[in-house]
């Protein structure tokens, strides 16, 4: 779980983008990398792929410093969605501090969504995490598809669970930042309760989420 070293004044957080195959987990990270300011964000690291499919994971790191000097690293990972890479999913899921579940809005993928969520619950418990305790956001991606499941239908079925649900079209951008900042907020709530980020380190929820999801000023900075 939260990797915190008081002596070194360092905190490392792990966010995991989970979901069925081809639901757009890597696209989410690519979009974040695209849209967020370079300040405090590391490079997107895409590990070996096979025919453009993730076989290990992708990693987008963030770095920020609290007013107290606490150095915080946030690492956003994707897992491979294909069923055969379950061992990799389990390895990446270890000690996750938050999970974004990227579901596919295509009606034909409903079953894969369900199977993958089931797999998430099972793997979380295998690595010693409780799905009810881990900060979790569900994103319904591919809202741009004409046949996408109606939003109302999604809200109706997910509303009772109390899990925040966001709508996104990762390929074009909408919803990606919202999903990320919602998850960041939930993770903040969780660690603030334990590490008193605001009281001890002077880092408010707004600042934390704001710094992580600070949009790039158009054209102000290029890639190195």
């Amino acid at each position, binding site marked *: 779980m939260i*990797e*915190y*070293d008081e002596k*070194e004044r*360092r905190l*490392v957080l*792990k966010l995991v983008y989970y979901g069925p195959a081809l639901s757009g987990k890597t696209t989410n990270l690519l979009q974040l990398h695209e849209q967020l300011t370079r300040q*405090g*964000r*590391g*490079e997107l*690291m895409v*590990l*070996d792929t096979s025919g453009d499919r993730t076989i*290990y*994971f992708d*990693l987008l*790191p*963030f*770095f920020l410093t609290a007013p107290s000097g606490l*150095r915080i*690293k946030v*690492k956003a*990972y994707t897992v491979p969605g294909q069923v055969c*890479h379950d*061992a*990799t999913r*389990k*390895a*990446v899921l*270890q*000690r996750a501090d938050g999970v974004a579940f990227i579901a596919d809005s295509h009606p034909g993928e409903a079953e894969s969504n369900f199977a993958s969520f089931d797999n998430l619950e099972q793997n979380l418990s295998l690595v010693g995490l409780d799905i009810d305790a881990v900060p979790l956001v569900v994103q319904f991606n591919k809202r741009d598809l004409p046949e996408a499941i109606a939003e109302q239908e999604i809200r109706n079925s997910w509303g009772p669970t109390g899990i925040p649900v966001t709508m996104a079209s990762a390929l074009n951008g909408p919803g990606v930042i919202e999903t990320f900042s919602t998850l960041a907020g939930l993770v903040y709530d969780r660690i603030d309760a334990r590490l008193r980020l605001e009281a001890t380190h002077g880092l408010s929820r707004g600042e934390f989420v704001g710094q992580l999801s600070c949009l790039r000023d158009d054209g102000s900075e290029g890639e*190195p």
Partner: protein
Amino acid sequence: MTAGDGLSYLVGEERSLRELLLDSEVLPLLKGVVAAGAGSARLVSEEGEVLWIAGGPAGGASLLAELPILLEGERLARLLISGEEARLKEIAPCAELLRVALNAVLRNNLKRMLTTEIHTTVVNSSHQELVEMNRELSMSEARYRELAGNLELRVKERGAELRRAHAHILQQEKMAAIGQLAAGVAHEINNPLGFITSNLHTMQKYVSRFCVMLQFYRNLNPGLPAEARAEGDRKWQELKLPQVMADVGDLMSESLSGAERVSRIVADLKGFSHLDDAGEMPVDLNEELERTLTVLSHALSGRVKIVRELQELPSITCQPQLPGQIFLNLIQNALTHAGVTPTITLGSMFDGKRIRISIADNGPGVPQALRGQIFEPFFTTLPVGSGTGMGLAVVYEAVLKLGGALAVADAPAGGADFIITIPTGKDQPDVQVLGTF
């Protein structure tokens, strides 16, 4: 954060520059800048520690460039290049080039390391899963082996049980068949025996009348002419009538008593088989003993000495064929094992609560080691074919049915003494105590 803090991810663990970069990767780059004209090139950590250095000490020369080295967005070190200020223009682009090169090496190394880590982790966990699967399969195999082993044992047990039950039924059927035969024979003999006895009685009467008449004529003899008298005497002697007259009475009474004995044997046979009786009835065990002796009389008569030490017993209520089965088998057993001059001692007594019957022989007795086995079905000390091994088992079963107990002890004069203890209905608690035998 360095490794070994105890806080670590399995995958994506935080790395220091020292872990990510090799001397052979960094030093040639730094030396390149020095070769290009810089005085020294250093890579200094955020904490101020010099990680790598090329060229002479920085003393005296001015700092020409200070560039950050980033890892995952975090500034981990600074690249410091010193030299003569005049060379700033040439050195600055070199420094930027060096920074880009170092960052590229750093990223590639991190990526390679992450790939290796995740790959190793996945391979390890797959291996562990296989090991675990193997362990579970082995366990399940062991379980099935055990089941299979037990199954064989169970089959053997059941087989033995079946054989016992089968032999038992055979024995019971044998007893029933003997009983039926005896009853049938008894019935058939009874009819002719009836008129034989009756005729014998009548004939006895008639013969005595003949004798009276003969004597009457004989008494007239002295009054006859001498010739006729001599003829009569001669005839009387020739026909041996004096002996006949003396014998005929005995012959008749002996025949009658013989017929009576036959009729008694027949009655005992019928009684022994108890075919006519259904359900339970009061039975006097002494009577049953005597009856069994009668049935066995062919085997006993003349050859075997029977000692009776019988006391009066209260009757018990039971299926009437059970005591017969018990006594027949025990006496046969005693006969088989008795000594050269066979003696069988039958004892019965009643202590107010229990009836105790003992049947003892003067044979070699039952060795202590065999006493636990002799009541088991098929156990026999006789040569194959001579004994079924069922006799004592049937006795044991029958005694249990009477609510009694069966034990074997040494007879006072040596030999085996089978002791049957049967509670009378009057004192129920004893039934339970004895039933635990």
